[in-house]
């Protein structure tokens, strides 16, 4: 009976179970359809979207920085090159605990505080930019031993690599820092100005000098490659590559032999020497002393060294040729003389009586001549040769400020020379308008007098003096100075010469005026009684010059300037301008040696040495 009941129940129960199994099957089918429709949505409807995502996952565009152009001197000596360097880099994407990895790295490779500081800011920036794929330099310029040491420990540091790169190197160091300048790592300010696409992958940018002003030529054009990367950011294969175009090589106008003489002459002194070819504006010498080592700036100078440079009394960071503003002193006299002749205020025969001082009518103030006893009867020729102040006081007074301003402006005083590197100071050529505008005062006649001997408000840079001298040597032809004469293609070596920049011609009423002034300048060095007669002794060629002495402090009416009794930094600056050979000048020079006293003693002999070298290389100097 009981068995019967169970059996009957079995049928019902098996029917129940079977029904539930069918229900389960239906549920399963519904769920499978749900899965299929979701997969259909992903694979068919959203296929393109996910294909794009998949590609952006694995395909990265890597910039290939171009190789920066090299810089050569006139004679083909390399002045800026690219040295292979090795840096230790970290890829954020592959690192979990950066501090821990850095701590372990420190045990095998020296990493200092400055490295860490730079690394951490770059690391944060990379994380913010979501460019976790890009590597970040931790240590630069690894030594060979360090590269080897890391290589054997490489397996312990996933996400850390040594990469080879090129780093700028200046073999001549401080000798040409004010000319070439330097490159340094691109900083925040640079980023605002550069085209990021062009500079992706580039680490360095020109900061100063040639490196800065010729940045666009030197940099070249970045290439790129499409690479397939894995999840760690490691490149699996290169898919497509566009080669970078290397930057152009630059050929400077600098003559290294002359540059070396100038540097030696300025050794241990503050000063500037600039020489240029008046015919085409080629700057042959461009020396500002003291200099500093540009190589320290390439990968970031440490704060201590930089502060030391900033704090130095000699101000090595100042480019004295372009930024040093000095009173031109007596070097302005040839130009004044020419303006006097040209305006008909003086003839060659007109003479002034020089008793050793000059006074304006109705005034008791005595404007002193450097020669206490005076020059006696003095014409233009003697006034330039002996650098008579009284002649020029009188001349300036008769010309008046307006004519002086116009005349000196033509020679470029008070204006930038337009040389092909930046940072030039204007200098100052005073005028009535200037004084009214800046000082809110009327022009006083006494100020005209001292302007006549290059003192007072007048300031000029050595570059301006050199350009004015070149214009004088050229008999009025004004040429813009330049440091780069041409470029060459890094692969084909095809040379492109840059054109000379002829700015214009200073016209005079009578061309004999040029010869009159130049002749007087020649007598400065070759004539008996010329202020720099010693410098012209036994020269195998003829050159013309003019000494100058720029006052640093005012000397009272009845006081005497005694060099030895004055602290060095208040002593006069020695100046000298010159060009050679007289008949058809090929080199014009401006020299300023700070606090060195009279121009004839210190500055003129330097010019002579440079001219000797320059002329001997032309084969014109006689032996002995």
């Amino acid at each position, binding site marked *: 009976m009981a068995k019967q009941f169970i059996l009957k129940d079995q049928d019902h129960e098996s029917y129940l*179970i079977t029904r*539930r199994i069918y229900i*389960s099957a239906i549920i399963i089918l519904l769920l499978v359809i749900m899965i299929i429709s*979701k997969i259909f949505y992903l694979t*068919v409807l959203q296929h393109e979207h996910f294909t794009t995502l*998949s590609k952006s*996952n694995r395909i990265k565009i890597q910039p290939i920085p171009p190789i920066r152009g090299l810089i050569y001197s006139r004679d083909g000596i390399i002045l800026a090159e690219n040295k292979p360097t090795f840096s230790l880099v970290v890829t954020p994407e592959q690192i979990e605990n950066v501090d821990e990895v850095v701590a372990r790295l420190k045990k095998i490779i020296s990493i200092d505080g400055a490295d860490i500081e730079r690394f951490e800011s770059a690391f944060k920036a990379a994380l913010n930019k979501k460019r976790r794929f890009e590597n970040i330099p931790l240590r630069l310029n690894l030594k060979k031993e360090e590269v080897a040491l890391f290589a054997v420990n490489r397996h312990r540091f996933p996400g850390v690599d040594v990469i080879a790169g090129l780093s700028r190197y200046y073999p001549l160091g401080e000798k040409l820092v004010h000319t070439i300048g330097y490159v340094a790592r691109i900083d925040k300010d640079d980023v605002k100005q550069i085209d990021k696409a062009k500079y992706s992958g580039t680490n360095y940018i020109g900061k100063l000098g040639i490196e800065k002003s010729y940045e666009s030529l030197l940099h070249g054009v970045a290439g790129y490659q499409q690479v397939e990367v*894995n999840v760690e950011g490691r490149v699996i294969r290169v898919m497509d590559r566009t080669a970078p175009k290397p930057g152009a090589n630059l050929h400077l106008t600098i003559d290294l032999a002359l540059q070396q003489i100038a540097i030696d002459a300025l050794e241990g002194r503050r000063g500037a020497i600039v020489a240029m070819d008046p015919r085409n504006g080629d700057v042959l010498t461009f020396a500002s002393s003291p200099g500093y080592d540009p190589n320290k700036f390439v990968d970031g100078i440490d704060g201590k060294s930089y502060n030391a440079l900033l704090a130095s009394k000699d101000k090595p960071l100042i480019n004295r040729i372009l930024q040093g503003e000095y009173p031109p002193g007596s070097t302005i006299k040839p130009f004044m003389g020419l303006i006097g002749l040209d305006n008909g205020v003086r003839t060659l025969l007109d003479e002034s009586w020089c008793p050793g001082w000059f006074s304006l009518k109705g005034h008791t103030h005595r404007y002193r001549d450097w020669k206490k006893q005076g020059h006696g009867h003095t014409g233009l020729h003697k006034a330039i040769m002996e650098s008579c102040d009284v002649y020029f006081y009188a001349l300036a007074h008769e010309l008046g400020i307006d004519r002086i301003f116009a005349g000196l402006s033509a020679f470029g005083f008070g204006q930038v020379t337009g040389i092909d590197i930046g940072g030039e100071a204007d200098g100052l050529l005073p005028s009535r308008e200037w004084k009214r505008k800046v000082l809110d005062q009327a022009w006083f006649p006494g100020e005209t007098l001292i302007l006549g001997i290059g003192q007072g408000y007048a300031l000029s840079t050595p570059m301006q003096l050199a350009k004015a001298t070149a214009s004088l040597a050229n008999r009025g032809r004004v040429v813009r100075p330049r440091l780069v004469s041409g470029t060459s293609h890094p692969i084909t070596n095809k040379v492109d010469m840059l054109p000379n920049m002829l700015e214009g011609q200073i016209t005079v009423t009578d061309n004999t005026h040029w010869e009159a002034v130049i002749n007087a300048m020649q007598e400065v060095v070759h004539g008996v009684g010329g202020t720099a007669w010693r410098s012209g002794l036994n020269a195998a060629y003829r050159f013309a010059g003019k000494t100058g002495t720029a006052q640093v402090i005012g000397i009272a009416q009845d006081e005497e300037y005694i060099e030895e009794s004055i602290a060095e930094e208040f002593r006069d600056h020695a100046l000298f301008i010159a060009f050679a050979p007289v008949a058809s000048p090929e080199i014009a020079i401006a020299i300023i040696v700070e606090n060195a006293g009279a121009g004839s003693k210190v500055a003129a002999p330097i010019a002579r040495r440079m001219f000797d070298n320059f002329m001997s290389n032309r084969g014109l100097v006689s032996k002995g």
Partner: protein
Amino acid sequence: MKEFSLGQRLHIDFPLLFVILALCVIGLAVIYSAGGQDINLVYRQAIKLSIAIMGMLIIAQLPITEIARWSSCLYLFSIILLIVVIFYGDVGKGAQRWLDLKVFRFQPSEIVKLSVPIMIAYFLANKTLPPESSSVIAVCIIIAIPVLLIAKQPDLGTALLVAAAGFSVLFVAGISWRLLILMGILAAAATPILWYVMHDYQKRRVLFFLNPENDPLNAGYHIIQSKIAIGSGGLYGKGWLNGTQSRLEFLPERSTDFIFAVYCEEFGMLGVLLLLCIYLFIISRGLYIAINAQNNFGRLLASGLTLTFFVYIFVNMGMVIGQLPVVGVPLPLISHGGTSMVTLMAGFGVIMAIHRHKRFLSF
């Protein structure tokens, strides 16, 4: 006396065996691709597969009555192992799951995946069906003890699968819809408690399942990369060994839990349809065996194990396509790994035993 076919004499269900073998071959091919074309990985997996298949064939020889008779002992034994693992288990990935027997290591929770449905099937087969409330409560207790022990390890994925195995049997046994809905409500009410006991990484996974784009580099990363793999595979797939998401290692866990994404990327929508057809064949074969089983124990057990098999598939695929939170459930018979494979094969062995022994009793 009726002539027995070869399959009947060997106690093997050949249709099931062939399809399982086909699936294993597909699995090995995908593992080769997902594992960075490491042939050693494939060898090791093939060895594990062979052992698991042999285990399946041995279990298929067991008389169904013996399985029923030992069900209580098996259940108690597995519970004891779960308790032991709490005190002596090895820690792997932050959870105590493994028991080291010197010769080999295994997870007691895998045994539970079988012992629970066997126990419940045995329990309910001796009751009147549909089960009364008291039986349902008893079944819930039978399920709850191992589930809580596993959840404590913590291994939420396995706990869910064990619970699913138990409730599959209960569902097939005809539990009333009213009770089913009531239990659903209770489960929903228990969710906050579950949230409270969940580990941080589990909570994060659930949160980022809800909004994966929130944190693309951490918790949501799995799902985003997996969707990219599936979507970029398209209709036809990128081809075997050509899946960039897996080859370039953007996909995490690509030879284990996320192997389905690799499969989708390389074989596309069409490959998915083929795979689902194979799975559906296995499921329908299992349910066919259940319907034709000799007794209620066989019916309940075969259908319960088959439904659990589907739950595996559904949870894994649902996770990979971003429909379910990330829980560590492998794709059955495809994913790399030994333990879950052995359990699955043992389950199929039980299903085969149910099928073949019926014939002996019914000639």
